[in-house]
């Protein structure tokens, strides 16, 4: 049995975690954003066909993932050694995540 270990230093800055959280909110929102854009514009829809058998879903999700990973990399580079206002970042990230849940729901997406 491994022995209980005292808490490691609480000095670990929260910036890395905040970067991952906000980027995940952005990535989730981008899925909904690109899906709605592809649904509303025929030109954008055909642009999103990265792989024909899967259709526009291939481009919508690939673009969202690219934006998510880019946002994560940029935020990580800026925040990794810092403590940031996590309450505000959590609020924004949860708002983006909640919006993405709502905006992927077809009756709501169709309002745009």
């Amino acid at each position, binding site marked *: *049995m*491994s*022995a*209980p*270990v*005292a*808490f*490691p*230093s*609480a000095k*670990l800055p*929260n910036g*890395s*975690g*905040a970067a*991952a*959280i906000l*980027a*995940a909110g952005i*990535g*989730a929102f981008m*899925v*909904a954003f690109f*899906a709605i854009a592809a649904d509303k514009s025929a030109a954008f829809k055909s642009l999103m066909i990265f*792989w024909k*058998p*899967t*259709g526009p*879903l*291939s481009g*919508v*999700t690939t673009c*969202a*993932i690219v934006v*998510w990973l880019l946002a994560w990399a940029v935020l990580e580079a800026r925040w990794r050694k810092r403590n940031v206002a*996590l*309450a505000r970042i*959590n609020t924004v*990230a*949860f708002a983006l*995540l909640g919006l*993405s*849940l709502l905006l*992927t*729901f*077809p*009756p709501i997406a169709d309002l745009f």
Partner: protein
Amino acid sequence: MEITTRSLWTLMHGMGFGALYLLACSGALVELWRRYSPNAQQPITSRDESFLRIYFVVMAGLAWLTVLTGAYIVYPWYRAAAPPGTASLAGFPQRLLMSNPSTIAWHSLGMEWKEHVAWLVPISITMAAAVFIKYGRNLKTHPQLRTAVLGFTLVSFLAAGIAGFFGAMINKNAPVEGGQTIHLVHGESR
């Protein structure tokens, strides 16, 4: 007893990776809620911490396997266009659902929601895994990070549940079938 290759892939996508993800998700939520609360009394050992790190990585792997097999293996069979003059739409699930007013919403609402909302799952759980790998038991002293990891894991559970429910119902109404037939067991007639 036999199964087609398309049916087998659909089974692996939904009942394999997807269902396993849902099961794993409930375990992670309980563990995070109980053990990593700032008020939790029981100390966290390095073994507990390593276990949950691996657990999150496996969950992220399952989430990615689910969406990738869904979008790039099963979905193309689902949305395949029927050639003009096709008499039976059995091999074209999307067209089959859209051909009947009583089943069209399984596509226009169910699949349209499922195919997008499912992608929130790997994004959310990859974040949760990354944060847990970085902070581990320090989450007890970073309650806001723990809240975010818990919240995103909970939403990933909800999104996976939505995708799983619609996947199961769509496949019940218009099964993805076809491809090679694999004989599993040769039965005997009575």
